[in-house]
């Protein structure tokens, strides 16, 4: 019988090369899992984090090499694509993983009873697996890969949200997260099945080609796309799929919240950008569609940003406030998604993608810094509430001043990098041609005004309120870390002009 004689070609080496960052990080996960067999407990935790950081940094460098080389390389029989957008975002995501590991070393590893310290190998394996999923999300061009990527990003995240299993809040956060995630994933899969039925393929490009040649999207495909949006919207916590976000951020440990606030959203937003471009990017074929799709995304962005900012006003818990703030920022980035490419330019060079990438880059640093300060203050005071920050300017100026910079940057006020990001975004919206997106600029400005109030509440608490509590000790390492985060947040403005050319 000639049954075993199947000639199945292995993926070509070029595909593996394009996929090298994920391979490196996966190997790191295996190394992290095997480490405990060779090390005693006392050494294990920090080395685990260090190995993760090194592996992630190596992956980021590998992705960076691909970014520098440029070009668009479809890999794995068209399931993934390694173009400039995906390469840049993978640099961002894997670099962020490295930063998170360092942050963990500085903040969490001081906490004796923290579950992520006691079971560091498990925690870092989950962290890495989720990051691989996010790396997959930003480069998927096939709905099957989209689904697999989202699930790979989500399932370890659920476990990480509940990693503090001794604490009730962690258990509650994980349960809400997983229930919400499972529901949206199921709806997404139903949507994907409908899209498969309509277009006979799961390839985003071929669906896009069908949409372009048909010039119309049948209602059933719209239903399918809405289902898909539920899955992606869940990852970026767009309204109305945002309910999990504040609860999970509050219940999970600070490091997990930081990770989810940046990496998960960045991956989701890049994926959404790709999907929206695929469907609406053929402006030449169907101009009226570009308008309605941009309008739909714009409305989604408006809702997300406004609701996030308004809800953040009422928060006393800083982690929860930052959660709503991250929803609001997802709303801003969604505005960038609405900027569809107009003159046949690819996804990588489009102004929307540029604005999105710059915003995410800046947001990474300011959010990481803000969360780091929250974690450090929590380590000393045991509280994440705004009262804990009262008088911080006097008690720990090395934390308070960078924190103020982060918050100002989060608002988007001029001297900080956040301003550059927002300006770039609003400018792109302002000059967008075939249809007018200027109303989104107005929305964005109003929202920035709202956000000023709650960010400044923290600044006011830090510098204007007084308290009897003594000074907070800040180790040199911690101070150095926070200041290191503050450097790009202030310094990026200086290199603003080259930065816009970066992508």
């Amino acid at each position, binding site marked *: 019988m000639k049954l075993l004689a199947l000639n*199945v070609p292995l993926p070509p080496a070029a595909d593996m090369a394009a996929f090298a960052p994920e391979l490196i990080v*996966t190997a790191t996960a295996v190394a992290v899992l095997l480490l405990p067999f060779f090390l005693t407990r006392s050494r294990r935790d920090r080395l685990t984090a260090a190995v993760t950081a090194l592996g992630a940094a190596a992956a980021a460098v590998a992705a960076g090499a691909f970014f520098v080389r440029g070009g668009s390389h479809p890999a794995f029989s068209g399931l993934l694509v390694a173009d400039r957008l995906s390469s840049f975002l993978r640099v961002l995501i894997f670099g962020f993983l490295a930063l998170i590991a360092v942050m963990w070393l500085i903040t969490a590893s001081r906490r004796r009873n923290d579950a992520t310290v*006691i079971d560091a190998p498990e925690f870092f394996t989950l962290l890495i697996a989720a990051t691989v999923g996010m790396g997959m999300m930003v480069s998927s061009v096939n709905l099957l*890969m989209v689904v*697999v990527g989202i699930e790979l990003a989500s*399932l370890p995240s659920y476990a990480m949200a509940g*990693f503090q299993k001794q604490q009730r809040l962690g258990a509650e956060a994980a349960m809400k997260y997983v229930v919400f995630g499972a529901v949206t994933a199921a709806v997404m899969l139903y949507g994907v099945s409908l899209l498969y039925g309509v277009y006979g393929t799961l390839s985003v490009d071929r669906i896009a080609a069908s949409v372009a040649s048909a010039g119309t999207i*049948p209602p059933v495909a719209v239903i399918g796309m809405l289902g898909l949006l539920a899955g992606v919207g869940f990852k970026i916590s767009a309204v109305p799929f945002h309910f999990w976000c504040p609860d999970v951020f509050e219940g999970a440990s600070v490091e997990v919240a930081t990770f989810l606030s940046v990496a998960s959203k960045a991956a989701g937003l890049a994926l959404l950008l790709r999907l929206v471009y695929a469907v609406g990017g053929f402006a030449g074929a169907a101009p009226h569609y570009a308008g309605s799709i941009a309008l739909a995304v714009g409305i989604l962005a408006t809702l997300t940003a406004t609701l996030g900012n308004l809800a953040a006003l009422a928060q006393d818990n800083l982690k929860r406030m930052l959660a709503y703030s991250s929803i609001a920022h997802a709303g801003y980035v969604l505005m960038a998604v609405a900027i569809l490419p107009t003159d046949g330019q690819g996804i990588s060079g489009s102004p929307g993608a540029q604005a999105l990438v710059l915003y995410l880059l800046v947001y990474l640093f300011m959010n990481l810094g803000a969360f780091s300060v929250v974690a450090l203050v929590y380590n000393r005071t045991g509280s994440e509430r705004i009262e804990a920050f009262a008088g911080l300017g006097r008690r720990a100026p090395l934390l308070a001043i960078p924190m103020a910079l982060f918050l100002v940057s989060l608002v988007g006020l001029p001297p900080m990098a956040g301003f550059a990001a927002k300006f770039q975004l609003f400018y792109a919206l302002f000059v967008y041609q075939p249809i007018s997106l200027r109303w989104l600029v107005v929305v964005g400005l109003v929202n920035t005004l709202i956000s000023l109030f709650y960010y400044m509440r923290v600044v006011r608490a830090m510098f204007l309120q007084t308290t009897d509590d003594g000074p907070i000790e800040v180790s040199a390492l911690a101070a150095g870390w926070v200041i290191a985060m503050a450097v790009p947040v202030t310094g990026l403005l200086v290199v603003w002009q080259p930065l816009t050319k970066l992508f």
Partner: protein
Amino acid sequence: MLEAILFYGFAAMALAGAFGVLLSRNIVRTAVWLLATLGAAAGLYFLLGAMFVGAIQLIVYAGGTLVLIIFGVMLTSKNPHMRFAPRRAEVAVAAVVCLALVGLLVWVLLHSTWYVGPIVQTRAQWAQTGVNEHPWAHDLQAVTQFLDANHVAIVDAKGVPCGPVTLAGLARAAWYELTVMPQGDQGDRRQPLHDADGKPMSGDQLLAELHALPPQDRAIDDAALESAIAALESPDAPARTVQQVAYACGDADLLTDADGDGTRNIGLGFLGVYLLPFEVISVLLLAVLIGAAYLARPRVPASGGTGGGR
């Protein structure tokens, strides 16, 4: 007729399960109702020719996931007959919303045009689509000649040659025994593959056609073809069918659908086109294993660390 009976049987079972899940207030009974749906869905997959998926559904879903769920129910219910009663108003609202949803969804589904392809058209119809001007066409000369001889072509709904129009496509068409059908028709397409005279094509004809092809255009070499023919010459073999020919040729692509269920094709897919998600799933399962084992592990004192073994 038999198909209709089986379909309605399975469908009734699936729906009974679904409504049981919806209406049952006892969580264990909910899980048992889910078993009905899962089993019926497996039956439907068998009915649709997806044998392997059906079997996997039984092994993984009914035998694994559902057992896990029931296990979870047992571990998390103090009172064995725990009930969770939704409020009346919620039920009313949910019923209305769901009925509206079903109505809308069904209406939309029934008024939609679905992708149909590959379908087999006559040579004349293919010519009308202008496919010969398609850039792929020159690669397909040999196949075209072969198809021409049979007055068939494998094209998708738009008249574009589907996928790689190779012998795999032909075998697929042969297996599904497609025939000329109007675009957008969603009826049963499993009708005999016709030859030039409009008669069902026999295995011998297919074999002859395979022989006539230049070697580089078929996935099997001459020796394999000869031995396939020799194997089919056994004295008590009945008239050869298209499927038997495809089976005996031993070619992976040809075998796919001659197996009757695409199982081999699925295996090839996992090693070929879908290798990446297949491997990614392994990372996912590793992470899930670690995450679930960590969370479900009994609480350990914070100072004691986890497991002295490590």
